């Protein structure tokens, strides 16, 4: 049984939070392993998008070198670059290189988490989570996502076509014969698609109804949100600020709901919400909350690994390490539900 897209989005958010809050290599390793396990064992919804390994290596190397060359701090000096070289001149330390490597791991984690999401839910399911008022935007996003692989294919075709005319890519000017057909071809495809969508009745109920009340309500909602945030930040009036923000959010939500009701849409696929979805959602929210909520009761010092000025072994708290395993919930619930589906 596949999970609901909303449950997957909750898993993605908690993974991104986990990657953002820690630089402890042990916890990072756990997160990366969890992402890899979930990615490999979850039932796939569409073509497996796989980012090239070379990209990950490039990210690691770039991040490591960038940090090592720009942060001249740490006791374990590897070598020195002349001081007169701007920015990179100075001591190059093992600590800076290691911290750069950890940042690279975090970036790879982000990419892998998004790769998992692109495998387990379709772009249509993803944009289907948007409220009905955003239906045209959702369609546009779906089409835009579909244009990416087509455009990549087109680049290959055009590059080949220009090569057979004897074209060689040497300077930036040589890219013009590639970009022009790509741009013109892209516009032509967009035009054809627009025509096809009109022929299929797209926008048939979308005659612009300029309802001024909705527009005013949306603007007021935004202003209230901003004002609440400002009042809380500048004058420290927490209660008033949060109140204004809540009213603003409510106003925006209600207005969007009203707009959505006026342009009814039906859904061919409606994913039912199951107990498994609730478990994944709850586990994800609890885990993210645990990492983010300002609760003094919990000792989270081991999250903040800092290798400067001298390399040290990272701390590891077992209870926190176990909490990171919450990221495996999608696999655990699938395993309990139907073990045969795993890895399909």
């Amino acid at each position, binding site marked *: 049984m596949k999970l609901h897209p909303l449950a997957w989005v909750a898993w993605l958010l908690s993974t991104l939070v986990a990657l953002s809050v820690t630089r402890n290599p042990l916890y990072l390793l756990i997160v990366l392993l969890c992402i890899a396990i979930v990615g490999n064992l979850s039932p796939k919804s569409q073509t497996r998008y796989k980012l090239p390994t070379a990209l990950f290596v490039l990210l690691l190397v770039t991040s490591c070198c960038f940090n090592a060359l720009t942060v001249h701090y740490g006791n374990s000096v590897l070598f020195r670059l002349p001081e007169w070289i701007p920015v990179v001149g100075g001591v190059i330390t093992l600590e800076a290189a290691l911290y750069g490597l950890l940042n690279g791991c975090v970036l790879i984690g982000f990419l892998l988490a998004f790769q998992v999401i692109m495998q387990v839910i379709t772009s*249509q399911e993803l944009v289907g989570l948007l409220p009905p008022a955003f239906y045209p935007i959702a369609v546009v996003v779906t*089409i835009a996502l579909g244009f990416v692989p087509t455009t990549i294919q087109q680049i290959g075709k055009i590059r080949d076509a220009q*090569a057979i005319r*004897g074209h060689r890519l040497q300077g930036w000017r040589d890219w013009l014969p590639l970009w022009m*057909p790509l741009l013109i071809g892209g516009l032509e495809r967009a035009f054809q698609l627009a025509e*096809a969508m009109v022929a*299929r009745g797209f926008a048939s109920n979308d005659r612009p109804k300029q309802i001024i009340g909705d527009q005013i309500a949306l603007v007021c909602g935004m202003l209230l949100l901003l004002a609440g945030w400002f009042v809380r930040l500048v004058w420290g009036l927490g209660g008033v600020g949060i109140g204004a923000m809540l009213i603003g959010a409510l106003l925006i939500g209600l207005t969007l709901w009203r707009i959505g009701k006026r342009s009814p*849409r*039906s859904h061919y696929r409606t994913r039912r919400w199951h107990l498994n979805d609730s478990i994944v959602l709850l586990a994800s929210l609890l885990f993210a909350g645990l990492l983010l909520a300002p609760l003094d009761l919990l000792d989270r010092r081991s999250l903040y690994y800092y290798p400067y000025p001298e390399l040290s072994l990272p701390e590891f708290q077992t209870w926190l390490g176990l909490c990171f395993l919450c990221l495996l919930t999608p696999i655990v619930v699938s395993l309990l539900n139907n073990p045969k589906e795993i890895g399909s």
Partner: protein
Amino acid sequence: MISFEQVSFSYPQAQKPLLEQVNLEIPEGSFCLVVGASGSGKSTLLRCINGLVPHFSGGRLSGNIRVDGLDPVRESPQVMSRHVGFVFQDPEAQFVVNQVEDEIAFALEHAAIPQQEMRIRVEEVLGLLDLGELRERELHTLSGGQQQRVAIAAALALRPNILVLDEPTSQLDPQSADDVLQALVRLNADLGITIVLAEHRIERVLPFIDHLIAVQVDPITGKRSVIEGEPRELLQQIELVPPLIALGKALAWQPLPLSIKEGLRHSRPLARQLSQLQPPQPLKHSDVPVIKLHKLNSGYGQHTVFEDLDLELWAGEITVLLGRNGVGKSTLLRTIVGLQPIRKGAVEIMGRSTRGKSVAEICQQVGYLPQDPNALLFSDTVRDELLISLANHKITGPAALERADVLLHKLGLVELAEAYPRDLSVGERQRVALAAISVSEPQAFLLDEPTRGLDYVAKERLAELLHTWRSEGKTLLIVTHDVEFAASIADRIVLLGSDGITADGPASEVLGASPLFAPQIARLFPQTGWLTSQQALQHLLAKS
């Protein structure tokens, strides 16, 4: 059901109207074919039926159009989408989402059809178009024919009474095209849906139609006229027709046959009187083949497309490569010019291996035209396209200008020298692309599906050009699905199957013996070696 009364239409900023005082009456439940040259206004005529013209295109329209009791100009295409399903030439260009079922349901979701009803309708069209097994598939994994059937299913989901299709089979191989046409015949016969179809390869469609519309352009005045009627009557008035019709008209066969089955009634008595033709003369070759493939292997990733392929191509010979979709015809051409890596074996051009040479270097000796000539064109004028190709080959200045002008003249493009290439018709664009790849004066040409989207006039011009190149001693290897075109130009036919080359020999022998690729004339007069209506007429008239 569909009526046009004194309809005229001009595109914005056009000096002349494209449609002038058109009067039409397409009966309900008919299967109607619209024919005419490229740019004659067929697509515009079709787009008037659902209101895309003038709502989407802009322009001025006068006269009255009634479709299913509605006026599409007043109602807009969105309203007409419930009455008229529209299918475009390129299925990929009309897909919104990436899965078969979702694509079919897209218009229904938008129309807020209740989910239960939606499920019934999706099942209905999946069954009608035999797509049940493909329902979960992603669209980019389907073949061209399957994609076009999904496009038709998506258009039918709103249960229209009329289905309009703009050259739906132009990009398909014969088998896939046949699948699509059979689906249309079922829709027309079983559900009574009115089908209006524009098509260039009319030999595929003629057996199924009961109404014909011809959009004609006067070659002198450029004035357009639209005539309609019963197919057999109207075909007598149309000049460029498929070989079967051309032969039937020349021999005054009555009633004029529209299908091979009907044609055989006339041809069998004649065929009995015919003696066996002389076997074709073996082709004479020079000592060294221009292109030689030796034990060639190629593929993508883990997938091997062909292995141990041997082929020799000679000067002054037109070879046509035929085969089902996916057997590796295009891959073979790409491997020869270096766009696809050679896994094993060798490609030799004029006796020298291409190993280590760049694509640009190989293409100085071998001109290659890919399936989509648009990918080649990016300059502001046709002349610039040629000058840029020449500059790529390090030829600039007055010498380049002179060479470009000579080539423009040779390819009949002088009048279009200052035109913007992408504004030209399909046939003209293809000639510009051919000019762009031939400026380096290569010894051989590889052309991938050169007749895609071409009308009969453009095909005739292309055939003339290919014959000119052959007479100049060039080597030509052409990949096509258009068997009638292959029959009209080929000296030699190579059939490529999934296990490699399955037949290789003179066109009359290979095409005449192939149940899948035999042209119309070879089917009418089997074992005669005739492939074209001209050959058949020549022999039959000589005998009489």
